[in-house]
């Protein structure tokens, strides 16, 4: 049989045809679901079966996290996820805000369908794929939906970037992680003057650029606070990304152009300020091989 014949023959194979039809139906279901901001029926079914116990529960947490099931009544339901492949037409910075929030909303929707109180252990990942262009990427979140014994089912579960064990410890001290807050701001600065101090021999602060970056950062952090305020009473923003770039001058415009941007990611928390439950902490000194600072530096450091 010729190569062409084999290819055609395969296409006429009933198994293959059925597979093709199934894939087409699946594609169609995803498209409809994403347009209507819901999920395909087969996903809904799996979530419902996981919720009812027909399917086994699934957890991204460690074995240690399972301890919190008996101690704190935190029961894993299933793995939930959401993603958003986003093309940034006018702003990479804003893309981060929109892309992550869309992905989280989708994950939250999955958790809602399972009747979860919270999604814990939420991990974020960004994917760029070769051949798709520089101006787009995928924002994805993955976590574990959990039920907390003794609580009613909420309409929308809270999103926690911490593990189940940390979630339990935070609960003990009266703190509830509630969501992911993002502040992302960019701006262009145009200058007639020699803002970048080119050709200068002297020490000098570039005050114009310092002030510009200060404004950009303040705007980003103010957006972070606003974003967090819809969810909680505070935000723990460990991740701060900041960048100042010089743009090519525009045609017909002699001014220098600078692009400044700042993105902050944080865990929004709900707590009661000035009310503190002591954890009764005791400092310990770990003699674990992994974490202990060696008495001698490593070979690499000294040779």
């Amino acid at each position, binding site marked *: 049989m010729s190569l062409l014949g084999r290819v055609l023959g395969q296409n006429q194979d009933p198994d293959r045809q059925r597979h093709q039809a199934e894939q087409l139906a699946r594609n169609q279901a995803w498209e409809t679901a994403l347009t209507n901001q819901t999920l395909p029926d087969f996903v809904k079914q799996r979530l419902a079966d996981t919720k009812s116990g027909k399917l086994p529960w699934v957890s991204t947490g460690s074995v240690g996290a399972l301890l919190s099931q008996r101690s704190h*009544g935190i029961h894993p339901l299933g793995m939930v996820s959401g993603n958003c492949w986003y093309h940034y037409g006018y702003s990479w910075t804003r893309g981060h805000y929109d892309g992550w929030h869309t992905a989280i909303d989708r994950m939250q929707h999955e958790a809602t369908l399972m009747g979860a109180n919270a999604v814990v252990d939420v991990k974020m990942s960004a994917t760029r794929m070769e051949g798709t262009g520089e101006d787009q990427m995928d924002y994805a979140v993955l976590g574990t939906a959990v039920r907390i014994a003794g609580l009613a089912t909420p309409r929308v579960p809270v999103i926690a970037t911490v593990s189940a064990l940390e979630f339990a410890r935070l*609960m003990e001290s*009266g703190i509830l992680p509630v969501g992911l807050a993002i502040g992302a701001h960019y701006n262009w600065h145009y200058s007639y003057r020699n803002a970048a101090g080119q050709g200068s021999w002297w020490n000098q602060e570039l005050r114009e650029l310092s002030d510009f970056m200060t404004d950009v950062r303040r705007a980003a952090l103010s957006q972070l606070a606003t974003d967090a305020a819809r969810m909680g009473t505070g935000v723990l*923003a460990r991740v701060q990304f*900041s960048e100042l770039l010089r743009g090519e001058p525009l045609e017909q415009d002699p001014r220098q152009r600078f692009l400044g941007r700042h993105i902050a990611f944080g865990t929004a928390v*709900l707590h009661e300020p000035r009310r503190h439950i002591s954890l009764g*902490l005791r*400092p310990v000194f770990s003699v674990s091989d992994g974490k202990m600072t060696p008495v001698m530096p490593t070979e690499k450091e000294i040779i």
Partner: protein
Amino acid sequence: MADETSSQANPALAGLPKHALERLQGLREAGQSGGIFTSDLSVNEFLMVREAGFEPLGLVVGSCIYHVGIQYGSWGQNQELNVISQAMYQARELAMTRMEQEALTLMADGVVGVRLEVKRLGWDSDILEFMAIGTAIAHSAGHPGFKGPKGMPFTSDLSGQDFWMLLRAGHRPLAMVMGSCVYHVAHQGVFKAMGNVGRNVEITQFTQAMYDARELAMERMQNEAKESGADGVVGVQLHEGSHNWQPHVIEFFAVGTAVKPIEDKALIPEPASPQIVIPVND
């Protein structure tokens, strides 16, 4: 109410405030309408800052974009490049001061977890961007005994955990202190270098240069601590680096937190002696 029934069913929920329990059950959609704090603390740091009796107020930032002047060292001479030293110091100082100003407007007692970052801007190797970022905190009960020098907020690069331990040790932070020295290490003469071929020998000239540069950086930091009225400096780190300068130019940067004993005896927490543990899971 919901919190009573739920904490009976699950004692682990007893610690959560009412609004948190409501949120978990979807009875409340949004957060508090009042103020909100921002911070760059990790979850554990947040716990420890509160454990120490403080509340985070806001994330504070200071920026400084600086054009570093041009200075060349003489080929064969060990010498400090004082123009560049001054630039590195002044720019950091400006970033720190602006961060402190932000903390002052928040009426903070101090700033913890300060990170001081230096970045070279892509388009010009003479321009450096300095950013100081930290979390402004205030004593929960509003005690005035934790302020830094001259009633300004204290600054510290200590983590939340370290801050808690420092108070337990009976000390309080005053100011983040630093010293910088950019040094040109002399080139060796050709004859001198040839003379060393095949011999194991110390190059005293280079030893001296490294020694002197480090000494200058440490001296400056220590003097700064003295001026702030400190008893000591804790957690000192000495960084060696080059921000894409010409060869043979190196910066020594010493940074640490100046501390002094807590004056008000009533504020000193119970001492805590660390227990030695062997973790079994790593």
